[in-house]
């Protein structure tokens, strides 16, 4: 049997009474892509932190390259040949790509001209598939996906033996994600090992040789990807049968639209859009990053600048100029970035849940604690949020629970229309299913729900009908009968057969 590059045995990590990891075993072979999956809070991040040297307060054995080691800091791990690409980027936006890639490291010349630097970074850039960009471009002019690749290029510059990618595609659209995957394949061909942490099971299946499954801080199984089925994997992640991730599709909706969007022209779109949104349906806006779907949702909610347009609901024609005006019209909007504008992380969960409806829990401006508790408990129940955690800060919750709070706070205004951009970004499988169920339940009660998503699985399985967008243009509308992941992918990546035309 071949020697493992990295092996962890009986790793335990506790914070007070909480066990983040319990006797976890984990190993990576040279030249292997090892997937690391598990629900939020299963211990993936804790494990990654230990391997990367960010956390040395564990018990158990860590062996890397045949040596038993205990990294006292990330620099030690880096010297040993371990590199981690974090979810949060650490690039300096105003500096050039070349400068960012060669920011730190032993093999970086102390003094160099721009031209020398560019020559030095070229091999690393082509390694990650960025050979088409000019290394002198400043990082702020790149797309989010390209920035992630630059980050990886910087790590590769140190020639690591093991590369850890922690949710590298969580914020990326389909094409950028594919680039990341191609890069992983290239690295592995050169004998490097990769640990790939992701919620996106399709990617995990596409590139991983083996998959380690964490559950409640334990490593429950290591499986070969070959011959493994998705439901098998999901079941061992959850420790229970997940009957259906997606609820039964709503196929009928009312004939009269609830909200008519007319000539809405958000900044960033090529043409004005008309939309009819029906009560009781889930409308899906499909498109990649940059397709304009998110802009449409935020424009309807008064949170994005527009060139013109109007909304019509219950006979009133209006156009919200601020989110506040949209809220008064019972239009709720959840952006794709819950940490930016979806949550008050430092405030208690209960205050988050009632933040949209202070009038409802107050009497002449005086807050009524009983009304607030009642409202928060109702929402918590509807969204399966643990009641006993309501007084604690929203920031302590896992990504899935945070998303539930970010969405749940809108129930306080009894919305007629709910607009959600990326309803399950960075959310684990269990919380995902719960969010889908809740959206489904709300639609059944007559709420109109519009989601914009770059997640193909989600957009193909949840909505009643789908409108596809491509680079700021509405390209087609699909009823649920015509929906398939392949069909949608064609519509959002190459609707006009442009790939052929250009030649």
């Amino acid at each position, binding site marked *: 049997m071949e020697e493992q590059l990295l092996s962890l*045995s*009986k790793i*335990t990590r*506790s914070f*007070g009474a909480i066990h983040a990891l319990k006797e976890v075993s984990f190993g990576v072979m040279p030249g292997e892509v090892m997937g690391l999956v598990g629900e939020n809070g299963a211990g993936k991040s804790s494990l990654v932190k230990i391997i990367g040297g960010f956390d040395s*307060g564990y*018990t*158990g*054995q860590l062996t890397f390259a045949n040596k038993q080691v205990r990294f006292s800091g990330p620099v030690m791990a880096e010297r040993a040949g371990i590199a981690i690409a974090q979810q949060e980027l650490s690039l300096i936006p105003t500096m050039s790509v070349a400068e960012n890639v060669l920011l730190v490291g032993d093999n970086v010349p102390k003094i160099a001209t721009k031209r020398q630097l560019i020559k030095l970074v070229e091999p690393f850039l082509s390694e990650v598939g960025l050979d088409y960009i000019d290394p002198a471009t400043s990082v702020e002019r790149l797309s989010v996906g390209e920035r992630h690749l630059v980050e990886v290029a910087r790590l590769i510059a140190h020639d690591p033996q093991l590369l850890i990618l922690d949710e590298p595609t969580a914020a990326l659209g389909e094409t950028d994600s594919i680039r990341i995957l191609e890069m992983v394949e290239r690295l592995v061909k050169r004998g490097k090992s990769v640990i790939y942490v992701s919620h996106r099971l399709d990617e995990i299946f596409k590139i991983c040789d083996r998959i380690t499954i964490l559950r409640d801080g334990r490593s429950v199984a290591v499986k070969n990807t070959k011959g493994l089925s998705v439901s098998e994997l999901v079941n061992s992640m959850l420790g229970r049968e997940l009957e259906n991730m997606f609820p039964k599709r709503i196929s009928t909706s009312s004939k009269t639209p609830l909200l008519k969007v007319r000539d809405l022209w958000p900044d960033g779109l090529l043409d004005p859009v008309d939309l009819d949104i029906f009560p009781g349906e889930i409308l899906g806006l499909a498109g990649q990053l940059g397709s304009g779907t998110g802009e449409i949702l935020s424009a309807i909610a008064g*949170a994005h600048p527009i060139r013109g347009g109007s909304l019509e609901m219950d006979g009133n024609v209006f156009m919200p100029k*601020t*989110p*506040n005006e949209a*809220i*008064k019209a019972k239009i709720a*909007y959840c*952006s794709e970035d819950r940490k*930016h*504008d*979806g*949550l*008050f*992380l*430092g*405030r208690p969960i209960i*205050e988050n849940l009632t*933040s*949209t409806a*202070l*009038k409802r829990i*107050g009497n002449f*401006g*005086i*807050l009524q604690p009983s009304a607030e508790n009642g409202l928060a408990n109702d929402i918590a129940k509807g969204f399966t949020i643990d009641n006993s955690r309501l007084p604690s*800060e929203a*920031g*302590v*919750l*896992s*990504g899935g629970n*945070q998303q539930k709070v970010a969405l749940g*706070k809108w129930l306080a205004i009894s919305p007629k229309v709910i607009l959600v951009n990326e309803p399950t970004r960075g959310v684990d499988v269990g919380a995902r299913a719960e969010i889908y169920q809740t959206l489904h339940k709300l639609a059944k009660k007559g709420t109109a729900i519009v989601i914009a998503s770059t997640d193909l699985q989600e957009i193909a399985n949840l909505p009643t009908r789908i409108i596809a967008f491509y680079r700021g243009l509405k390209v087609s509308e699909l009823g649920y009968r015509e929906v398939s992941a392949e069909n949608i992918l064609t519509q959002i990546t190459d609707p006009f057969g442009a790939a052929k035309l250009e030649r």
Partner: protein
Amino acid sequence: MSPISEPINQLPKPSILEKLIQRHSKLAITLLAIFIVVFVYGMVTAPNFLTLFNFKTIIRDAALVGIMAIGLTFVTLSGNFFLLSMKETAALCIIAFATGMASGWGFELSFLFTMVFALIAGISQGALIGIGGNPIVVTLGAAGVLYGLGAYWSDNLVVSYRRPHGAEWLGTGSFLGLPNITVAFILIAISAELLLRKTSFGRQVYLIGANRAAGRATGHENFWMAIKVCTIASVCSAFVAIAFSAQVSSAQVNYFSSEFGSSGDMTIMVIATVMVGGNSIMGGFGSTLRSSLGAVFISTVDNMMVLHGFNSGPRVFAVGLMIVFSIIVFAILRRGSRSEE
């Protein structure tokens, strides 16, 4: 492979200190602990420190700075940093009040007259900050305008009015043995805390301060918030100006610049008080109660140093030290309590 060493499965037990840090009210505990240490030290070493009279002096000295700090706390909690025009607002207002009194308008009319200036100062600064102006820059500019107006109006001269006058009750009167200004401080502290904790307005202050973007998304615009909190801060400044003028039966535009407090500069003292109380500079976390305690704390240390015969240099130094110290202590403690997510 043979087992060379058994993995050590013993986990470190949380120490008493760790448990204490995990407690919810640890910030208040810390502030209290420092206070007690200083108190005990002062009691042991300073003559006449532990007398009822001296205690009253401490609270009375804390009152003026404390009231202004309570007003400023609203601004800080709402995420709009600081107003650098606190003392200039007070300077213009004290001239306005004394002019009214000297013209024989009586207390009530002079009070209202002064408050008009406070409202104009608060609303205009708040509106500028609300539309996106940097609070530091806006209020630095406003400071110049307000002070300049006051100086021009009074010709840089002392405006005095003769006793007996209608404002004496506020300046030198007392109630149940406490100076009325102390009573006002306590009442303002209590009502500010109630306003923050029990009303929709108070909740909005915390929410917008914790995350302005999320505040906007949930229908709470910082524009109106900035106007409200700046007005509260200005009104508190004006009230302090009136109370001080009532004490000395006069006014001069530089009363809050040099002849005041241990550091000689009212704005710096007020900001120090908010900081020493442990309020988050970024907003969303803290309370007016913290600022009130901060005022009493600074006043206690100052009082003790006076009794020890220190002159103003070392006392200013001590205030500076307290700011640095409190920022460090609170930063460490909060890092322990907040999640890193």
